Each structure stands twice: as C-alpha cells, then as structure tokens.
C-alpha cells in the first residue's frame, strides 16, 4: 500500500430512485496522500458535501469504493466504521454539529474519550486544539454562549484534536472574518505538514489557494484540477495581464 490516506475509486452516490433520483456524484476518482492538502471547489449542489461525507464514512457509496488508510469502507460494520471515524477521521461539518449541552472543551475531547483516551489526557489535547484555533479562553463556555464564528472554531478544534490522519472540512471558514479564516487555513496546512491528508471544501478561492491541489466538481463529476507549480518564476508572469 502506498501512502494514500484517502482513495475514491469510481465512486457514485445517487439519492432516491426512479424519476426523482439525483446523481450527486458520478464515477469520482480521487486519491489524497499523507501530507497532502486538497481543496474541492464547485457550484452549489455540485456534490462537494456528498464527496466529503462518503470520504468520512458518514454515508455509503451507491457505486465504487472508498478506502481510508487502505481499508475499504463498504465492507465495514457500523461499529467498525464508527471506530475508524473516531480514530482516523477529523470532520468539520458545514453546520458544525456540536453538542449544545457540552462545553467547548468537552465537545472537543468527546471523540477522544469515546476512543478510550483517559479523560485528563483528552482534556489536555482539547485545550491544545482550542489554543491552535485561537479560542483557549472559551474552553468552559457552552455552545449557546458562543458566536457562530466561535462555534465554528470549536468544530475545527474537534476535527484536528489528536493525531488523526484524515481531516475533512466542509466550508470551515464560512462564519469567520478574513483574518480568522486565514488562521484556520494555517492550522489545516500545519496538519498536512505534520503528515495528515487534508480535504477542504470551500467557495473561497483565496482559501483554496492554500492547497497543493484544487479539484473542480461540476454536476457530480471532477471536471478539472489545478496543482501548484512550486516554481518561483511564475510569480513574475502568473496570470497577470
């Protein structure tokens, strides 16, 4: 097995049946290696969130196969899938998906504790993650005492806590101002540099600019891809007219 953390092979996802069926993804192939940062862009409804939920094992493909660290997700039981998700996958939901009755630190520590990490250690890791996203002082606040942008950062902290190898983020900067958003990109980039595979769904070109590769989705298909050139001479010519 190579160092591919995430692999989609001919993945399709169709919602519903018959005349009302919606093909959200059609025969998508994508591989993301350890240390690689991939951004996914495309119009609303093009299948970006579908691609992410399938990659994180939150939904099942209707065709093809998704592999996480070489394990085909199709064959896993619900329990095995849940375990793999907690251990290997950090997921930032488009709508945060935080537990309102828990504090910020408890929300972040929860997946670690469920995975058997001692509470004190999980809590320490949670505080580290909250510091990384810039809100260490809010560790003991409940969700309904936080602004949208602050909740979003809790959701990001929950995804990066521990050493998870696959980080999937669905529009994680939507509720953030420009500078805070850049800080989050810095954090995601840092996770990739530490060896994680990172997939970011975004509408913001400036944030996709942080990725090694940008994949363009349209009507459920990957229609194009842009890879950084890492060639300083392009700075002088670039796309300038």
């Amino acid at each position: 097995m190579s160092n591919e953390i995430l692999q989609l092979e001919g993945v399709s996802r169709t919602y519903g049946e018959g005349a009302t069926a919606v093909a959200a993804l059609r025969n998508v192939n994508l591989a993301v290696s350890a240390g690689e940062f991939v951004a996914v862009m495309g119009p609303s409804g093009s299948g970006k969130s579908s691609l992410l939920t399938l990659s994180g094992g939150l939904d099942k493909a209707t065709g093809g196969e998704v592999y996480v660290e070489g394990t085909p997700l199709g064959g896993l039981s619900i329990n095995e899938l849940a375990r793999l998700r907690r251990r290997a996958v950090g997921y930032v939901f488009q709508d945060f998906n935080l537990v309102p009755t828990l504090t910020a630190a408890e929300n972040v520590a929860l997946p670690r504790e469920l995975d058997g990490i001692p509470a004190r250690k999980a809590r320490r890791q949670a505080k580290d993650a909250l510091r990384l996203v810039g809100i260490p002082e809010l560790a003991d606040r409940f969700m309904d005492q936080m602004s949208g942008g602050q909740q979003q950062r809790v959701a990001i902290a929950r995804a990066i806590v521990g050493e998870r190898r696959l980080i999937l983020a669905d529009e994680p900067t939507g509720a953030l101002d420009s500078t805070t958003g850049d800080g989050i990109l810095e954090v995601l980039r840092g996770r990739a540099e530490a060896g994680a595979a990172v997939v970011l769904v975004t509408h913001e070109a400036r944030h996709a600019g942080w990725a090694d590769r940008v994949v363009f989705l349209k009507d459920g298909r990957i229609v194009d891809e842009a890879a950084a050139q890492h060639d300083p001479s392009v700075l002088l010519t670039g796309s300038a007219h």
Partner: protein
Amino acid sequence: MSIRHSLLALLQGEPRYGYQLRGEFEDRTGATWPLNIGQVYTTLDRLERDGMVQKDGDDGEGHVIYSITEAGRAEVMGWFAKPVAQANPPRNELAIKLALALTIDGVDVAGVIQAQRKASMRSLQDYTRSRREAARSDDAAWLLVLDSLIFATEAELRWLDHCEGWMATHAKGAKSGADSKGLTHTNTETSVETMGAATR
C-alpha cells in the same frame, strides 16, 4: 506604477547611486516589477532637471551619488498622501477576451472560463505559498505586494464564477426565445446549480 516617485521615496532614506536604487526597489517589491537600469538613469536625469534630486559626487568607485532636495521631499510626501487614481478602465485582456468570446459563434466560452480559472488558481496557489514563506521571514514589504496579488487573483476568480453564472442564466433565456448567440454549448441542465453558485 510611478518610477519617479518610487526613486524619490528611496532617496528619502539616504543618498544612493543608480544600481543601488534599482536593487533596493526590487528588494522591497519582491522583484514583481523589474526595473531596467536605463529607466533608472533617465528618470534620475529628469528628476535632476526638475530640481527634485541633485548629484552628490561619487562613491570613489565611479558611481554618481544622488540625494533628494527639499522640493523632492515635498513631491514624495504629496505622492504618499494622494490616493492612486484608477487608470480609466484598466485594459484587462481577459475581460476583452471573454466579451469577444461571448459574441463570436463557435467559441467554447465555458472552456475559456475553465482554462482561465485553472491558470488563475495555480497562480493563487503559488502566491499563497510564497506568502507563507515570506511570513516566516517577516518581510513586510514583500508580504504587502503578495497580498495585493492574492486579492487581485481572488477577485478575478470570483468574477469568472460570476461570468459562468451569468452565462447560465442567459442561456436559459435564450432557450425560450432568441437565438443563443455563441452560447449553444452551455448545458442548460446545469443552469440552476451554476446560478446557485453565483448568487451565494
């Protein structure tokens, strides 16, 4: 870009000779706008003629040193204080290209847009990467230049999304009536989704 004011601004720091000025300018702007030495000397001549700089002897190795005059200082302060006027409509080759593509039959406008999007995205990736490196070295002037390139490229990409959305709407209208000038390639099935992106 005003070479004249840029050179005056550099001379405000300390007297310098031509090659030094060129080197300083390129260092501070990350060599984004290369200056040729001929331009530097012609500009210095004109500035001297206008009383903005004066010759200050040489450095012992045959380089003529220039220093700024009071009039030059006043000029450069005035330059900093004055907002930059937008060149009336800046000639944007991409905008011209798309405008023409839209009106000429048989041009795959969606293809033109996607090719540009890909190229602009690659530039954006490279600028962003350079910016990360610059941030580590704390090079403030270069950081500002990179930020300006990043935001300009972002604007271009947003504009491309907007054009695509606009085309989809236009094609829809065309379907129910008038001839769809050069837009027949647009897949009307995708219109709603593409418009969605444009209105977000």
